[in-house]
Structure formats: C-alpha cells, structure tokens
C-alpha cells in the first residue's frame, strides 16, 4: 500500500527551561506567562536565570535593578545579581 500525504498541520509547544509551577519572585506570574507589561509569552518576554539560582522575568528584574535602592542585588537572596550569558 502506498500512502501519499497531501497535507498536514504541524503542532509544537514550547516552554521555558524552568519548573512549570514556578513563578517570578517579583510579579508572581508563572514563567510561562508574561511579566505584567507584556501580552505575549516567549522571546519577547524572556526569563533571566541569575547565577545565584533565582530566576525572574527579564523585565521584572530589570525594573528592580534600575531602582537605585536595589544596589544591583537579587531581591530574593541579596547577592549581586549576575546572570549566565546564553
């Protein structure tokens, strides 16, 4: 028997490399969702994994780091917030 595929629909899903029930420590939204400023999850609203082991939405932690009082420290563990280069 010979089958000819005429058409197909490809479906894929993605998720961040983070535990699925994990939420951003700043906005408390799941990492698979967006920071409160964004509408579409994905590359437009990435997550940032700190070297200290704490992850946040890039936009959330950016807002925090930009406040003078944060002194560049992770809001969870107060170590200097540094992240792994991809």
């Amino acid at each position: 028997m010979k089958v000819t595929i005429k058409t197909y629909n490809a479906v894929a899903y993605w998720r961040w490399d983070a535990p699925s029930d994990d939420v951003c420590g700043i906005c408390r939204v799941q990492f698979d969702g967006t920071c409160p400023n964004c509408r579409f999850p994905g590359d437009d609203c990435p997550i940032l994994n700190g070297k200290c082991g704490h992850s946040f939405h890039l936009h959330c932690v950016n807002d925090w780091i930009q406040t003078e009082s944060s002194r560049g420290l992770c809001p969870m563990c107060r170590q200097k917030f540094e992240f792994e280069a991809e």
Partner: protein
Amino acid sequence: MSVDERKIAERMLMLELKEIQKENWVNAEAQNGNLFLWDVALVVLNPTSLYHGAYLKAELKIPKDYPMSPPEFRFLRPLFHPNIYKDGKLCISILHQPGEDEMSGELASERWSAAQRIFTVLISILSLLDDAEVSSAANVDASVMLRKDPEGYKRIVKENVETSKRDIPAGFQMPTSMDNKPPPKEEEDDDFWCDSGDSDFGADSDEDMIFGRVFSACGSRWQAAD
C-alpha cells in the same frame, strides 16, 4: 510615574488583597476601592502574646511603583512600644528602602526588596510587637520602661490592648483561635534567608528568623544612661 507601573501594582495588589482577606488574623479592605490605600486591622490571635485579643487598626499606603518600593504602615492608635513612634509609624527594617540610612546598622538582607509582599510585612509587624528591639528606640520611654520596669510596661500594653478593642467593628466576629493557620512560607528556597557570602555581620541567632528577620534601627541609639 508611568501608567504601566500603576497598572502592574494594581493587578498585584488586587491578588494580594484577596489572598490576605482569607486570613483570620487580619481584616483588610481597600479604602473606597482604592488599592493603594488599605484599612487594615491586625488581630492578635497568639494566646502567648502580650497583645492577645488586640484589634490593631492601621493604614497602609502603597506606592505606585510597588513592589519596587515598600509600603508605608501606620497604626491609627499608637501603641506604647519601643519601635513605634508616637504618630503610629513603625521602625522596622522591612519597610525601609535597601539603600537608605547606611549608618543604621540594618543589614541589607532585612530591608525591603521587590520579592517582599504586604503579607510578609504584616507578619513582620506582628512579630515585632512581642519582640521589640530596645537598643534603638522610636519611643525611648517605652524602651526604658521595658528594660527597667517590665511589669509596668505590661500594664500599659494591657491598657493599649483593651483600648484597641473599641475599634472592633459592630458585627465583626473576632476569631478566637489560630485555626486557620498561616500558610507555609512562600519561599521554599533553602538559601533564601542566608546571608550572602560578602556579609561580615549576620552571625545572629536563628531564633528571630521564624518568619524572616525583623530588625529595627531607628530613632536614637540606646545609650547606657544608668
């Protein structure tokens, strides 16, 4: 202040208020639907607390850029307490911006951060009541009395507690026990409370760390004026 910031804060506060309203040790409401101004009352349920049975009304002002900046908290009926100013404001490190008063001796780890919540603030305030920091007082009289005349101090606190009961709203059912237990600490991360490696101090006892550290360092530093 951007519109976005305000919206973010509003969304978070709405969720937090809902969450907090499930707790029986606090009675919280947004003033006229304004999520940036809350009427709260702390109900002291712990039977071993000096403040057991108190209904402590307070006002919570939340900045538009929350959670980047801490809320302001003020007891409407000021309590006689070493770390409470006569205007009802509190001296407690969690309400301080991490950057301000460098000389206070407060550790950065005890200050406000974007990972803190109204919930954690209220818990810290409750634990400050029975765990006053006498060495740096917002109310020096209270601080002196707690050290020199603890019985007299207790009497005044009892009066404060009785007075506070006048604020219990008609029809409000005072919870009698801690039956709805506070939910487990949100941060399960093991090293959350650890001092960062570059900290020189912080070898304090672990006892005050049940709900996270409460540390207060305002007003005049206590001088041994015996």
